[in-house]
């Protein structure tokens, strides 16, 4: 009888890495469907190019690192699907390819690859694309309901997004129900607020994202918008506009909640979400570009280790207190 052996435990949970990733991919594909409805077939082509570039770059980097390419964990596919959703539908194909290449080759593998990367590769790719191609390419949104041609130059009119209006200190003249349903201009995937909210609930119930992070982030951002509106408008309206314009809602769900680049303990996540909310709103208020969410994300990603270690210290204190209350003596520690 040929019997194999393995370490305890001998039964395992059914969930695998691949099911975690497929959950996220399902939600992103749903957003692609919505964008396809608004902007036409170009959306699908952008997504396909981005995924293909990410996969190719991933394989290349893994071969350079002398390890077998393991694409089954689908993390490159998730990055590839995220990138075009943060860009306008009229963005040239080159921009998407650049962002994908930079994200994988510079922001993911030099820091350790899957599970070890410090910075979110999608956010890093977007940052580089914004710096390279400027606000004219990046924040020029085509109007909704206009089907864009798949190839060739885009000749539709360019409309200013509510984020742009807010940055100038104006009040966007948009109906809130329109905004919730996605009938306004903005990044391809970031405008369908209701759909993104449904995706958030799905991911939280499937335990891909833990609830502490998005809740802390959105509550802090809402509070900040409530206390310091950027223009002369009622405070609740300011909260609605701030949360629904630009990349904030999408980023708060998909970029901030990414488990790899966020702290691991519950209370560390809450602290991180609060600080991230403040940093993002400050960037929005005092930044030059109309949407600086991705830059704020990268800065917060660099501080994750700090939050984690503070969380570990707190956990150590809590364990010590529990031990004392149960056993009556302190945990033995070497002097």
């Amino acid at each position, binding site marked *: 009888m040929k019997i194999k052996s393995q370490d305890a435990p001998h039964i395992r949970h059914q969930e695998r890495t691949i099911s975690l990733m497929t959950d996220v991919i399902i939600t992103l594909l749903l957003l692609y469907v919505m964008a396809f409805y608004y902007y036409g077939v170009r959306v699908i082509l952008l997504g396909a190019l981005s995924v293909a570039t990410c996969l190719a770059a991933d394989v290349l980097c893994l071969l350079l690192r002398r390890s077998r390419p393991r694409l089954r964990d689908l993390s490159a596919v998730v990055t590839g699907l995220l990138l075009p959703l943060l860009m306008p539908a009229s963005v040239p194909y*080159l921009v998407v390819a650049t962002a994908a290449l930079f994200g994988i080759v510079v922001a993911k593998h*030099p820091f350790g690859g899957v599970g070890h990367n410090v910075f979110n590769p999608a956010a890093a790719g977007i940052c580089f694309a914004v710096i390279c*191609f400027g606000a004219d390419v990046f924040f020029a949104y085509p109007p909704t309901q206009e089907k864009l041609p798949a190839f060739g130059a885009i000749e539709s009119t360019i409309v200013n997004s509510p984020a742009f209006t807010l940055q100038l200190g104006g009040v966007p003249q948009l109906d809130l129900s329109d905004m919730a349903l996605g009938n306004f201009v903005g990044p391809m995937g970031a405008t369908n607020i209701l759909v993104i909210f449904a995706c958030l609930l799905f991911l939280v119930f499937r335990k891909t994202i833990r609830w502490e992070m998005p809740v802390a982030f959105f509550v802090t951002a809402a509070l900040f918008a409530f206390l310091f509106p950027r223009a002369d408008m009622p405070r609740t309206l300011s909260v609605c506009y701030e949360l629904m314009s630009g990349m904030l809602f999408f980023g708060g769900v998909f970029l901030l909640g990414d488990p790899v680049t966020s702290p691991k303990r519950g209370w560390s996540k809450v602290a991180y979400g609060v600080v991230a909310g403040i940093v993002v709103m400050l960037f929005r208020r005092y930044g030059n570009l109309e949407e600086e969410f991705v830059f704020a994300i990268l800065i917060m990603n660099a501080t994750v280790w700090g939050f984690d270690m503070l969380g570990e210290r707190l956990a150590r204190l809590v364990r010590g207190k529990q031990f004392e209350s149960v056993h009556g003596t302190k945990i033995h520690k070497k002097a």
Partner: protein
Amino acid sequence: MNLSTVRKYTKKHSVVAGLLLKNPVVVLGLDLPFVIATSTSLRNAAAMSIMLLCIHMFTLLAARFTAGRMHRWLRMLCHIFVSTIMMVLTRALVVRMFHQDILNSLGMYIYLMGVNGMTIYQALAVKRKTPLLQVLAAAFQNVLGFVLVMFLLSFVRELLGNGTLWGVVIPLPAVFPGLLIPFSGFISVGFLLAFGRFLNKRVTAFLITESARTDLRYAQLRGENRDD
């Protein structure tokens, strides 16, 4: 390891040590700010190289004469004095060779060259009895190492970031201006450092296999002699 093989190859390599295995920027990590911030065009690279050449050679010359004669701190002050004077003179030369605009693109780094780390570090390391020619040769090697790295990076960054080479526009399908900011300089130097480590490992591996082969050959020869 067979030491004679290692010595043979190290001797062969020592001629170009400053360029490859002992490259001051990539291996020793000296003068990195200049490489990161100013390697955005070939003209910049040329200007910085000329400045470093003059400053470095003259300062090491002065170092050869001050070695062993005075206290370490006083030596350093002398070296800085010499390099600052050279910096002022070379700056005038550079402005004459290239256009006045070069000062804008180089910014404060042209003045920082007067106290650059490579010169100060190497100058303090010069010993008293070293032959003058050897000192100058080593200095020249180090400058060549810096020049190599600067030109390599400037070539890539100017071509892909600006679409030009030495101001001449080259038609390219795409241009990425993001490569011109210092953030990309850090990243490109990082990749270059990784490549330098990779090269070092290959050379060491080569040395090990070569010396093993030499050992085997000697062992075989000795075995044959014994048979005779």
